[in-house]
């Protein structure tokens, strides 16, 4: 059982983390070249028009006032307004429908990584130095080495263009209208009982999830293999076997849970890479999520949206790692100490 004190301590530590991330984002954007007022006014606008926009946005205020206002607004969950992408529209509103798209992709990618990575790792450890082990290690090494911007187009070429098994882009078939309840298409279609639309959504999500999940799968299987190899050589496993317990039961009952601890850590850390990988995957598969939006707003110099996206990514990553920490201490209560 996880103690309340442990959870409270972990939640309190989120405050300096989020303050640190917010400060980093603020300073990096301040140091980056370009004047937001000029971006809003346009290249041909007069100096007077640019000065007026600077005054209106408070860009003429001393920097510490701007920093304080930025933190104060964040405290009230106000991420500001878009300068260019959807001028005047609140960033939080923009992200409301974009973020679930990326989240769905990342979660499916992570699921693909876990569902394939863990069994491959276990089989590889149990059949150490066999052909299966060598093949899975080679596969893992390839998965870790291949970048998304290369594997994405290759998979599209093979599975979509040549074989025609999966669609090349978009989130759902053109015959269906995407429902907007939570923003997670697979969940929304299930909630509304639109099962055919659900199948279409999963069908569309398969290839991007595979692309984004390959790296995760490779890393998880590598970690699971080495962790499992170490655990199955422990005395308590030998004792369980000596007492007559079957090999499979010993492996799954005593070995699996203990071998899972380092893998859970990797899964948590990996989630950040998945969110980062979503930027490339969404661009390759033309998925209208936060990743694709981030590329667009960086090109446009729309700073509030960039800030908002980076902050939301940081918050999600921190929360996922908090969840991992709690899972970690559930798997091995000694970790709380």
């Amino acid at each position, binding site marked *: 059982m996880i103690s309340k004190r442990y959870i409270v301590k*972990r939640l309190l*530590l989120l405050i*300096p*983390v989020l*303050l*640190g*991330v*917010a*400060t*980093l984002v*603020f*300073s*990096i954007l*301040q*140091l980056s070249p370009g004047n937001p007022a000029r971006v809003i006014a346009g290249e041909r606008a007069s100096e007077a028009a640019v000065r007026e926009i600077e005054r209106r946005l408070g860009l003429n205020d*001393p*920097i*510490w006032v701007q*920093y304080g206002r930025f933190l104060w607004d964040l405290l009230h969950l106000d991420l500001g307004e878009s300068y260019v992408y959807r001028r005047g529209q609140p960033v939080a509103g923009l992200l409301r429908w974009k973020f679930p798209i990326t989240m769905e992709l990342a979660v499916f990618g992570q699921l693909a990584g876990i569902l394939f990575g863990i069994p491959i790792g276990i089989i590889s450890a149990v059949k150490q130095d066999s052909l299966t082990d060598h093949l899975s290690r080679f596969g893992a090494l390839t998965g870790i080495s291949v970048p998304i911007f290369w594997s994405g187009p290759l998979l599209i070429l093979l599975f979509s263009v040549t074989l025609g098994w999966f669609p090349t882009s978009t989130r759902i078939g053109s015959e269906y209208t995407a429902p907007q309840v939570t923003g997670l298409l697979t969940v929304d279609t299930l909630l509304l009982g639109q099962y055919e639309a659900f199948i279409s959504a999963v069908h569309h999500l398969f290839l991007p999830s595979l692309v984004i999940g390959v790296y995760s799968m490779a890393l998880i299987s590598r970690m699971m293999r080495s962790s499992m190899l170490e655990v199955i050589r422990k005395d308590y496993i030998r004792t369980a076997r000596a007492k007559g317990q079957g090999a499979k039961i010993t492996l799954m009952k005593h070995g699996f849970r203990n071998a899972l601890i380092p893998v859970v850590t990797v899964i948590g850390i990996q989630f950040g890479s998945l969110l980062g990988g979503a930027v490339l995957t969404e661009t390759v598969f033309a998925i209208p999520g936060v990743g694709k939006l981030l590329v667009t707003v960086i090109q446009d110099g729309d700073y509030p949206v960039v800030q908002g996206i980076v902050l939301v990514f940081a918050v999600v990553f921190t929360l996922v790692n908090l969840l991992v*920490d709690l899972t970690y201490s559930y798997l091995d209560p000694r*970790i709380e100490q």
Partner: protein
Amino acid sequence: MSLSVPDQIRAPGRRLVTAALAGAIAGGVAVAVFTIDGDFRTATEQVFSLGALAFGLGLLGWSGSVMAGTGIENMQRYMKTRSNWTEADSRRAMTRLIGFGLGVMLVASVSTVGL
């Protein structure tokens, strides 16, 4: 009546203040140097941002050390890396970085008064 401050607060407090003083001096010098190359306002903004960068990194490093430091120590012991990295050392270093960043930010802010 003397006010006694526990050692747990006094030692990091001293470290923070010393680093902030160093940051204030460095910030002052940086504002002067940056002003040679451009206008005073831009110089203070750049110096403040650099200070904020150090402050943000320090905060992230400090909380990271508190959150995962013991785990990293155990992992190092387990893997026999002998890097001598400890959670306490990391926390101390990050406290100094936080203080330094704060000092730079403070000097850059104070120098904008009257602009």
